């Protein structure tokens, strides 16, 4: 890709094949053509790139974090503090981000670090897709990275190179005064920002469609009760706005702007579009304790980043009995606390471990359930445990088994219940058979055991015995 700046044409980005033949970013276009004949050159369109980047940024705003901004020409910065729990933690979150870009055939580099500067440098330095810099390990991680990643003007970087500086660590360990005398305060500021010595607030991106209510305070507030009071009022305002437009909120952010210019954001998600004052207030009040007021809060902003249409429905009269409680608010409370909330649903499969699946707790009722009157154990072991059994082949239950080091005499048993492998799942299951038995020992403990194979044909299994569940 070729960019033009004034009369100069230079290489602004290269693909893997071009990089192999020696092309580098920043090279004059003529030199690139000389290096490789038949080079395909595409004119860069920076305004289109910028527009696409902004689109991605807005998407990230609804998906991942309340505070999102465009970072330079080719990056997005997200403040994920207090928002990663909705995605199940930091690692699942960045993996998901990388995968979503991969699905669109884009390669993304994702890094999480303590500061914007550190994350910026890491994301551009790594060769794998994702990296997480552990808390308070920034200095060690940044030491070897090149100074180009310090977000300094190109001229300063060039001059520093001339002086022999290559890595950020070297620069950080150099006395500050001569550097400032020579290059101005910029180097010191960038270094401090990277190591978190001075704050670097992210100015979040906003679109006009976002429904936003805010409240600025003449005197900074800090007490938990005061915060709660104003959050309650903001929620009422937001609900009124949503009501006018017929929307319900799916994801809302509370952005706390403090006196010292830093921002903190709390994100709450709901399983269904919501327009209920008590419900939303509860979700935020639940986590007021997470707000660190510091020197005081100047402004509270409540934004509905993701809203969906929610039409009015007529409620059934209270004269009719049998009102079913809507548990969605409770599901949201659990979800925002980072617990895994789910329901169980049947899957049409005879193999026990495949016959259940987890579904979202707020999904529609299924009405179907598992059919069949065959006994099923209350506890299913995570994976079948090998046991030794003394049994008469082919279709008698064992006379005694040894499981977890304890020998049990089988007093009575039921079976076999034969379950066939599912050849449409895996080729290896083409012939596979399991023969399940319910056995009871002398003390009354009931176990679910099976034999791999039908007891005659070695093709169907190797005739080993396993314990798979515990009955009540």
């Amino acid at each position, binding site marked *: 890709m070729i960019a033009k700046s004034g009369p100069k044409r230079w290489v602004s980005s290269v693909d893997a094949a071009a990089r192999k033949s020696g092309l580098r970013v920043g090279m004059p276009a003529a030199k690139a053509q000389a290096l490789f004949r038949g080079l395909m050159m595409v004119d860069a369109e920076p305004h289109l790139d910028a527009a696409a980047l902004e689109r991605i940024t807005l998407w990230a705003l609804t998906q991942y974090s309340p505070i999102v901004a465009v970072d330079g020409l080719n990056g997005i910065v997200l403040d994920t503090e207090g928002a990663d729990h909705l995605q199940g933690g930091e690692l699942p979150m960045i993996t998901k981000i990388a995968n979503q870009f991969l699905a669109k055939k884009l390669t993304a580099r994702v890094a999480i670090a303590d500061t914007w500067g550190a994350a910026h440098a890491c994301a551009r330095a790594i060769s794998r897709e994702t990296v997480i810099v552990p808390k308070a390990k920034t200095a060690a991680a940044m030491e070897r990275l090149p100074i180009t990643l310090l977000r300094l003007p190109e001229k300063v970087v060039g001059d520093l190179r001339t002086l022999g500086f290559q890595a950020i660590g070297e620069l950080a360990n150099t006395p500050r005064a001569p550097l400032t005398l020579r290059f101005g305060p910029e180097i010191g500021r960038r270094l401090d920002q990277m190591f978190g010595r001075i704050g670097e607030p992210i100015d979040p991106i906003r679109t006009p469609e976002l429904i936003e209510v805010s409240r600025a305070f003449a005197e900074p507030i800090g007490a938990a009760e005061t915060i709660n009071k104003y959050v309650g009022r903001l929620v009422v305002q937001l609900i009124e706005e949503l009501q006018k437009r017929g929307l319900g909120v799916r994801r809302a952010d509370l952005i706390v702007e403090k006196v010292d210019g830093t921002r903190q954001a709390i994100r709450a998600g709901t399983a269904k579009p919501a327009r209920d004052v008590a419900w939303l207030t509860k979700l935020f009040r639940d986590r007021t304790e997470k707000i660190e007021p510091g020197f005081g809060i100047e402004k509270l902003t409540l934004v509905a980043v993701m809203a969906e249409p929610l039409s009015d429905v007529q409620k059934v009269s209270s004269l009719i009995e049998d009102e079913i409680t809507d548990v969605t608010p409770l599901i949201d409370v659990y979800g925002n606390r980072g617990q895994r909330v789910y329901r169980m*649903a049947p899957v049409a499969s005879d193999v026990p471990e495949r016959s259940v699946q987890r579904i979202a707790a707020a999904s529609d009722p299924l009405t179907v359930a598992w059919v069949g009157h065959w006994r099923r154990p209350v506890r299913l072991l995570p994976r079948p445990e090998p046991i030794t059994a003394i049994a008469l082949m082919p279709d008698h239950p064992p006379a005694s088994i040894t499981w977890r080091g304890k020998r049990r005499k089988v007093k009575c048993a039921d079976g076999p219940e034969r379950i066939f492998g599912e050849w449409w799942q895996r080729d290896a299951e083409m012939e596979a058979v399991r023969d399940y038995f319910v056995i009871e020992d002398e003390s009354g403990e009931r176990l679910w055991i099976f034999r791999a194979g039908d007891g005659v044909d070695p093709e169907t299994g190797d005739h080993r015995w396993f314990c798979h*569940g515990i009955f009540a």
Partner: protein
Amino acid sequence: MTAARAPGMSDGASDVIADLRERISALEGTSTRKAGCLAFGVPEIDAVLPGGGLSHGALHEFAGGGAGTVDGAATALFAAGIAARTKGPIVWCLTRPDLFFPALTQVGLHPDRVIFVESDKEEDVLANMEEGLSFGGLGAVVGELVRLPMVGSRRLQLAAERTGTMALAVRRWRRQTEASDFGQPTASTTRWRVSVMPSEELPVPGVGRAKWFLELMRVKAGECAEFLVRACDEQGRIDLSTGSADRSDPARRSVHSG
């Protein structure tokens, strides 16, 4: 004087006593009476429980016996049977997701009714249970717990009293030796131990209907008792096994109780 008159108490006197009891319980502020009870439908068991059943709006605690202290299979099924007979959604809080739902369907618990809340930490289970109890409108909140400290159980009991939701704590330890913890006092209204017993004998080879040995180890304002019951049927009901355990027979008392 009063003691001498007591045996020959007239109907009027018992009315007065009943009235006094009601007023005392009103003073104590327990709303259990208002929330009502869930009867087992077994006269012998309901008779020993004050109010004639497991009270809604109270914490009930269940533990297994023997290997059941670790796997908690019978305990979970017993709790599921009780939950199945309540009305409304069920919240089931746990840390070890090894419950096999088809078995719970067989005691009358429909998968649409049960919302599982899985957490990494044991303390979160207590917090989640309390949140569910204070939400109101649920049928029952079940929690699988290793430890149930006095303060935690008190909080659960109070939250349950406030909304009239039944709280069922299924105690499940990591090791069998840790189960002596069940002797520690908690604020629960009833405490049960469910142990598996050899199943009913059938005239043909096979495993009959499961039997449990049910020990009511503690009940507020009631006596301890023991029963030999047949496990939950497809509606979650238990019934007394024929050849019922004689409650006064000391020979059958479990070594665990007391």
